[in-house]
């Protein structure tokens, strides 16, 4: 564990960029470098003027990256802590959001959830996320069983599916996560939609887990996969 966090001492690193350090660690590991390159080149490949990329292939390559590369690399890339906007933008860019995340219009979140539930794997990953990142007031950390790693692992598990979450901006002070959807046009399901969306956008368990990982303050986080 010491090696994972070496050089991450905030006192000695006013100019350091932990997200850049995470990219370096990945590039120096053959497996991580290969699979990172695979999803970046897939997600970044322009098909035509009308279609900037193949989202289907991009999602598949992202799933392979997060499935096959150990968490000591992938978690560092996704949950690095940032003090400046350049670092936070790099963190936001991790999943190549213009292809894997953003879209011309924002679907309704409940429609997106419906699309996810139609796929058996997405459905079970989403259920894991709701279980492991369920905000609770019964623990100090806000997470069920104070298990940050389970929450982060389930978050990572959603990447590359219809419900792919990401950082909404490059803010360094507040972390806001959301899938690409809104609750406009929910009709009489508005309340349920907001509740679903808040599990991402206003979830103290998820936020604490990400911050603890970034700061290296959670000594229990020793991701194996």
């Amino acid at each position, binding site marked *: 564990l010491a090696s994972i966090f070496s050089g991450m001492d905030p006192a000695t690193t006013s100019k350091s*960029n932990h997200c*850049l350090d995470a*990219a*370096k660690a990945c*590039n*120096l590991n053959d497996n991580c*470098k*290969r699979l*990172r*390159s*695979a999803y*970046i*080149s897939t*997600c*970044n490949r322009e098909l035509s003027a009308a279609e900037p990329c193949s989202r289907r292939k991009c999602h598949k390559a992202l799933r392979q990256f997060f499935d096959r590369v150990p968490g000591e690399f992938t978690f560092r890339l996704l949950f690095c802590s940032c003090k400046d906007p350049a670092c936070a*933008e*790099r963190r936001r*860019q991790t999943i*190549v959001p213009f292809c894997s995340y953003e879209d011309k219009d924002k679907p309704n979140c409940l429609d997106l959830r419906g699309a996810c539930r139609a796929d058996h794997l997405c459905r079970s990953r989403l259920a894991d996320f709701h279980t492991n990142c369920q905000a609770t007031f019964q623990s100090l950390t806000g997470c069920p069983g104070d298990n940050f790693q389970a929450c982060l692992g389930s978050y990572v598990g959603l990447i590359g599916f219809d419900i792919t979450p990401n950082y909404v901006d490059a803010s360094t002070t507040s972390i806001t996560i959301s899938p690409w959807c809104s609750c406009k046009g929910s009709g009489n399901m508005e309340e349920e939609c907001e509740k679903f969306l808040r599990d991402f956008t206003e979830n103290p368990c998820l936020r604490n887990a990400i911050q603890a990982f970034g700061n290296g303050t959670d000594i229990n986080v020793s991701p194996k996969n």
Partner: protein
Amino acid sequence: SRRKRARARHKPCELRELEVSVSELGLGYKSDETVLFRYCSGTCEAAVRSYDLSLKSMRSRRKIRKEKVRARPCCRPLAYDDDVSFLDAYNRYYTVNELSAKECGCV
């Protein structure tokens, strides 16, 4: 010492590696990302073939005069590494192929 340096210069052809920033590659990309650059270095004295000896002989007998010929093997990549991708300073992703050597030989 001098002897040590001399020996280092006469290492046989092999793969070596350097950690460099993408900007340092000189390919026109601006990025602070670090990549592993593997290259081929070393001597090929042990790999001189009858071809090289004969070519030298032809040249000294002036049977070959105007053409540019190479009468000794050189240490070059036999295979290149997988693609490398990185995010540049303007938040654009790029992928570079055949950046790094994977296997070296005297060819």
